[in-house]
């Protein structure tokens, strides 16, 4: 077939002869899916891989305030290993993560069991407990900082009014636990809602059968309820670890890393943006990322295992 200039070709004919256009190639079955995912891949490369490489690179340098970089090899890492200002916040971060998750799960499980029945106003109550979840953690922490103020704070005034002694909430020995409490306060509605949803969806006949067999409450809870809820408990643990390991806002709103409350990300922030030590800051950031990744990998594997086992 010769394509003469000016001749009329029908659409079908032209389709047969000419090469497919770029648009046609890209929307073909083979490439279309990659086309769709491409923007995301670019974003991940730019916003994830680039900072990673940058920090890794800078971690081998001593960067002065004026920006001059001096290659010092592994010196930053050696410093870090001996730096008590790295290990203590790291330990505290684990402490906070464990305390918060355990408390949230226990309270959540308790409330889930309590509310797993039909009662008047159940929908309203379930809606109301979600209220703090979407409020900015920073603002809530500032508010709590005020509520827990020693002299004029509402909580201490209440305690004094009912004859108890005022508590030094921001004492160096207890401030970390106060921060835990604030975080737990904001997030226990999350675990309570998830577990309540889980309890509601459990098959009723299994429990009735257990009752017929004469199983007692605690036994049923341990052998039936808990195993059936375990995928949800793992999801909560996983997600909360992800958030808690990055805890930053509540620190800014309350102690700003003082009184023994400095956590992992706050330490990276302080080194990089207060002291502007980019080299050492990058080292700490890489370490923080590395530890997060290890925990993430373990937990994701566990999550997938549990989901496979139950489904």
């Amino acid at each position, binding site marked *: 077939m010769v394509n003469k200039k000016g001749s009329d070709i029908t659409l079908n004919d032209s389709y047969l002869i000419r090469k497919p256009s770029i648009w046609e190639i890209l*929307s073909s079955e083979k490439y*279309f*899916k*990659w086309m*769709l*995912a491409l*923007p*995301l891949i670019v*974003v991940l490369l730019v*916003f994830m891989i*680039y*900072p990673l490489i*940058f*920090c890794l690179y*800078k971690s081998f340098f001593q960067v002065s305030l004026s920006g001059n970089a001096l290659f010092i090899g592994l010196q930053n890492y050696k410093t870090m290993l001996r730096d008590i200002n790295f290990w203590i916040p790291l330990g505290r971060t684990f402490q906070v993560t464990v305390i918060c998750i355990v408390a949230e799960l226990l309270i959540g499980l308790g*409330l889930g069991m*309590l509310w797993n029945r039909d009662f008047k106003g159940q929908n309203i*109550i379930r809606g*109301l*407990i*979600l*209220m*703090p*979840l*979407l*409020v*900015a*953690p*920073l*603002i*809530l922490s*500032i*508010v709590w*900082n*005020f*509520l827990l103020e020693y*002299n*004029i704070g509402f909580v201490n*005034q209440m305690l004094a009014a009912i004859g108890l002694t005022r508590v030094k909430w921001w004492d160096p020995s207890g401030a970390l636990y106060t921060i835990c409490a604030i975080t737990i*306060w904001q997030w226990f509605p*999350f675990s309570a809602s998830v577990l309540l*949803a*889980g309890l509601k969806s459990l098959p009723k006949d299994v429990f009735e059968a257990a009752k017929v067999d004469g199983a007692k409450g605690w036994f049923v809870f341990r052998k039936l309820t808990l195993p059936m809820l375990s995928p949800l408990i793992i*999801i*909560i643990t996983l*997600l909360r670890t*992800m958030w808690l*390991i*990055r805890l*930053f*806002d509540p620190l*800014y709103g309350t102690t700003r890393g003082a009184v023994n409350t400095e956590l*992992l*990300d706050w330490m990276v*922030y302080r080194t*990089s*943006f207060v002291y502007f030590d980019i080299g050492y800051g990058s080292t700490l*950031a890489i370490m923080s990322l590395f530890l997060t*990744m290890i925990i993430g990998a373990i937990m*994701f594997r566990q999550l997938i295992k549990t989901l496979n086992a139950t489904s």
Partner: protein
Amino acid sequence: MQPVKTREGENLKNQGITFKRVLFWVITILVLVGILGPLLWIYLTAFKSSSDIFAGTLSRQLIFTPTLENFKRLFVQFPFFKSLGNTLIMSLGSTVLVLIVALPAAYSFARWNTGGGHILFNTIASRMFPGVVAAIPFFIVFRQINLLDTHIGIILLYMYFNVSFATFLLYGFFRDVPVELEQAAMIDGYGRFNIFRKVVLPLVLPGIATTSVFCIIWSWNEFLFSFLFSRKVATTVTVLISSFWGSIDVQYGTMAAGAAISILPTLIAAWFMQRYIVRGLTFGAVKG
């Protein structure tokens, strides 16, 4: 008519039930007061004069003459509306960008399992990526290309920080669309793009709405990036409110007034999105 024994037994049982019911409501109400109290307290404090705020007595904390002086000071002395506007622009702008990136990608993962799950895994892993790790290089790059303290700079950071969440959440919604529908549309002669636009998109509209609201709220609440990357022009409302705290005289009243306004949208969203909150917060893993 009934034997006495049984009636007594029933009475005892009823008492047990009544006691349990009372206990149930006591706990429930305590939990509700505990949760809602601090939030209500923000609104109370916002209308208190500073002499009432700093009064050392409980009665003046609870019973006081409402005043608008905190709001007046907030609006006149501080760039509150400007920062509220900034927050709004950044939240909406970043959410639009997030949807442009996440929507097609989520569809691709849900329909073709693109990348065999590895890309999706990396997407979710990026949510664990410490904000400060990204902040260091971007601070230096942004300084070089003059993006520090600009709306676009912060919008880009917010997009980065929401995109993994949005992709994952949308992925779940796309998976709920039956493949058969798309196959039927294909037989009817629809092209790929039209299937997406005319068949799939209308079905995931609730999912897109949920995802958008969550992205807007996360950006609305965001603090680390806006704190590090804004100075004067692009300050967000969280940064402004945090500044009431650190100064020498602590401005609790102004802070409460600012908080009262800025958390209102999130409270309203929490109430109207009840059904989707659990699903959103668990990245779609739990369909509450």
